[in-house]
């Protein structure tokens, strides 16, 4: 059973009376433990694909199954549940809540899975240590460097033990050495068995993965191993 299964997935948007086909028949399987990059220039549809895989949206047509659940026409609540329990996101802009400290940022997904306060704290602190932020538990994002922020984001993505970890240009806002460190964390997580999907336009980032899918004009143009 594949972790991700897309069959002839299409997604189109309406802007005024113009219909824009962002995805035009994408079929894709991702297995447990894969380390995958989706690349393509802006406007290629890779963000749309990423939103579908990340359960932020549903396809206009076609079949989409993620972690064994048919989400082809899922409700917002079903999507939210999958996002909460099965997926972890790491964004280019970190997307941390500036008013909350490191622990509170990391524990955010656990709040929405209804986990008790003590367990939330314990798990968030444990994860914070595992991403190397054991000394910064009470700091706010504004007191952290970019690399530390991204590690908080990775911690938040991991805290609910998701089956797939998404990185949307995770190194885009970082200098190259810090970016290298973050990529190394993804690689390490994959070595420990986590399925990791990176979305990027940077071939160097794609190069650290084991499988690259290139998107052009809403279709998979080619697939290769770096």
């Amino acid at each position: 059973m594949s972790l991700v299964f897309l069959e002839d997935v299409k997604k189109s948007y309406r802007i005024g009376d113009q219909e824009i086909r962002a995805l035009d028949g994408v079929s894709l399987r991702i297995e447990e433990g894969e380390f995958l990059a989706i690349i393509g220039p802006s406007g290629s549809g890779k963000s749309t694909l990423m939103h579908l895989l990340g359960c932020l949206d549903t396809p206009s047509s076609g079949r989409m199954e993620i972690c064994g659940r048919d989400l082809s026409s899922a409700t917002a609540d079903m999507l939210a549940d999958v996002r909460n329990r099965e997926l972890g996101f790491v964004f280019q802009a970190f997307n941390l809540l500036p008013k909350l400290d490191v622990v509170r940022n990391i524990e955010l997904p656990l709040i929405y899975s209804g986990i008790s306060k003590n367990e939330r704290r314990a798990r968030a602190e444990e994860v914070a240590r595992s991403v190397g932020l054991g000394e910064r538990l009470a700091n706010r994002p504004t007191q952290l460097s970019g690399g530390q922020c991204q590690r908080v984001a990775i911690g938040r993505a991991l805290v609910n033990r998701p089956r797939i970890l998404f990185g949307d240009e995770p190194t885009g806002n970082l200098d190259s050495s810090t970016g290298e460190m973050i990529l190394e964390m993804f690689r390490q997580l994959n070595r420990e068995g986590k399925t990791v999907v990176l979305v990027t336009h940077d071939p160097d980032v794609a190069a650290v993965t084991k499988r690259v899918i290139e998107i052009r004009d809403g279709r998979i143009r080619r697939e290769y191993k770096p």
Partner: protein
Amino acid sequence: MNLLICLETGLREIAAHKFRSFLSMLGIVMGVSSLIAMMALTAGIEKGTRAFMQQIGGLEFVSIQNKEISNALFEFWNLSPGRTLMDARALMAAVPNVSHVSPEMSHGALVASEFGSDRKGVRGVWPGHYVVARHELAAGRFITDVDGDQASRSAVIGDDIAKKLWPALSPTEVIGRTMTINQSPFVVVGVLVRYEREQDKRMRTILAAQNKQRAGQPMRGRGSGRGDPFRGKNESVFIPLSTMFYEFKSGLFPDDSVETVKLETLSFRVADLGAFRETLEQVRRTLDVTHRGVDDYDLETREEWFDRMEQSIAATRLSGGLIAVISLFVGAIGITNIMLASITERVREIGIRLAVGAKGRDIFMQILIESVSVAFIGGIFGVAAGGVLIQVLIIVAPTENVPVMTIGSVLFSVAFAIVAGIVSGIYPAMRASKLDPIEALRYE
């Protein structure tokens, strides 16, 4: 997402934007404080009115009035003896739920002492008058049965009369002094307390406080102005009914005995209000016998009068409450407005929460609880402000009924503020919960 976290998040948000939160609370603070003040004012008016109702005899007081006989029955008019002592005795004997009966004969007379005199209506009464009219004595005793049996020359006088006849003496000192009624000597055996409205009482204490050298001096002439419902009580002169008849009436009606001379007033007191209607019916049947079936009397109860007072209290309460509710509503709109601005500012935060798995209803609850918290805190401040407002009202208008702040009004106002918070939060919360996570994450 449980309520506690929503509450924590909401309070954090309120604390992070203190001035903005204060502004959005302000409307609720004003609404709640005016609601509290309004309710306290009406409660004060209500209390004053009820006290007044008690002092004038309460609902238990019923008076029997003469009625014009209808033309068709005119020839029977002579058959009825009218209101006499027979009626009073019959009621005492026949209607168990009548606790006291007060027949009265009155006579305009010159009352005088060595220090002053005045023309007043002197009233001959039974001891039961004390209960029926709810008198209170400042000193001495009321007319007793012994006074009645012996037709003694005892008098009980109201405060104004006491002041008029013995300006320098206290009620206690007046007891035992001799006054004259149409030149006949009477011993003062009792002086009634001074009856006055709450307003007059407080006006007097305020004046006394302002005017140290006159403090303690009697406030002569006060309370005798027009519209003072207690003027009659303060100007009373009571003597035993039998004395009244033998001294002043037997000469006027030589053919009548004390039993048959017509009374000026006849009233009674109902013991158990639960059986009010039945009691009145029994009274009517009894009086039909003594009046030989002639329909020449009416029972006048306080019901309608009291109902009108109750209605005016209810109207005051309603109009006051309405104004306060409108201001609370304005406060609620204020919260809505600021919550809308606040969620626009927090679109990205909402997007992040959605991305990590928050459902629409989680976001809904978060925003709703935040607005309820604002309203609740505003409500608490409003209660405090309302308390201050009441003190201000007391200082500004010291002679009005004292506003009464009740626990009930506090709970009601706070509950109302919470409702306002819910109402004002629903629309912003709905807007926030309907945000698309992708759009929200892109929002700068």
